């Protein structure tokens, strides 16, 4: 079975790389298979790691007492799960053009939940923590524990953050000092984008090396 798996993987890998020549039936076969398998995997995971543990199990535990001879395991709270289950079922209103509006109910809950959770999360994780990280070295400067090079780095960090924010600040016209700050911000942004690009390229090349290593050693190793 392992040998068969290696051959299947090698065939599909070569099918995808055949796209480097041009679009062809082998690539289209692998592409469509990948879509089908990925969607199937998503369904299985969302049922087994979402619906069953969070909806079915508590609901079943609450309903069980109605079956004779089965001891009661959980309180009536499990019946509350009927509400999200009913809300989830409303998504199927999207299958009928006349009932598409029913999707708004579960969507509103998900959007409201997402919006509600993102406000404190963004405040705490990104705004407070990132601001703290930016100005914290100045406490060390005040205490006299930061080296001269560390001071340069701390000042550079604040200048970079302020200038980058200035570039995205469109409430005032970018003229005079604001224009200069904005131009410095573009410089910092270019360094950030260059770093992101370099890291992305290296990540993709690492994946390519891994696939080529599989073809040369694991697959060709089964032949020679």
């Amino acid at each position: 079975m392992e040998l068969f798996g290696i051959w299947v993987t090698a065939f599909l890998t070569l099918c995808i790389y055949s796209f480097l020549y041009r679009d062809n039936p082998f690539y289209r076969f692998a592409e469509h298979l990948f879509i089908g398998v990925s969607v199937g995997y998503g369904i299985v995971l969302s049922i087994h790691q979402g619906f069953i543990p969070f909806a079915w199990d508590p609901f079943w535990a609450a309903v069980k007492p109605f079956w004779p001879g089965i001891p009661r395991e959980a309180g009536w709270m499990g019946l509350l799960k009927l509400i999200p289950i009913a809300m989830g079922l409303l998504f199927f209103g999207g299958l009928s053009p006349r009932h598409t509006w029913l999707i708004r109910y579960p969507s509103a809950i998900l959007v409201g939940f997402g919006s509600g959770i993102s406000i404190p999360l963004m405040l705490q994780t990104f705004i407070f923590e990132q601001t703290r990280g930016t100005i914290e070295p100045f406490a060390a400067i005040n205490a006299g524990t930061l080296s001269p090079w560390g001071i340069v780095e701390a000042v550079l960090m604040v200048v970079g953050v302020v200038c980058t924010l200035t570039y995205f600040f469109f409430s005032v016209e970018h003229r005079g000092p604001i224009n200069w700050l904005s131009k410095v911000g573009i410089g910092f942004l270019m360094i950030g984008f260059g770093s992101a690009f370099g890291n992305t390229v290296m990540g993709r090349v690492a994946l390519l090396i891994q696939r080529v290593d599989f073809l040369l050693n694991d697959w060709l190793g089964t032949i020679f």
Partner: protein
Amino acid sequence: MRRQVPLVLCFFFGVTIILTRFSPHPFSQSFYEEVNSWALIIFPFAFVLATVTLIRSHVTRIRRRSEHWQYSFIVFAGLIAMVVIGVPFGPQHPVFEWLFNNIQVPMDATMFSLLAFFIASAAYRAFRARTFEATLLLVTAIIVMIGNVPIGDLIWSETSSVKQWILNNPNLSARRGIILGVSLGVISQSIRIILGIERSYLGGGD
């Protein structure tokens, strides 16, 4: 009724979730856990609806004999294989794991590795140092790329140190600026959604 009730639901869930995050009371925390599980229950239904939509679009392709319609059967084959084994027997079933490890994972990695070739051609177009900003981007990308591989330190022993300094200082400051801007944008957009000012998620119609 069709628009007002969803707006009320959105407002209720948005505001109560914010309040629970600022209150350590056990009731508040258990309410948060309960609503969190509701979101996890509702989400799989949305996923099933998305799958049904995908199936319908491929059935239409087959029925109309659109270009490359035969490949829609391959989509169904992959989907059915995963669902028929995974749903009744669970993701730990050996056949499901075999399909995942020998089809999905390697194809996922290969698809992304394919981008290495296209990113190279994109880099050729983007990295022509015509302006000061483009030169800055070019030099940074080269230092980061060379600093990530052993040959970088063979060329100059400080290459990886310079790369790390760029990542930890100017790169981080730019990222912090972007993160702060994006976070403020997300917060303002969330407030607009909760208060019912932003209603695009409701779609058109009555």
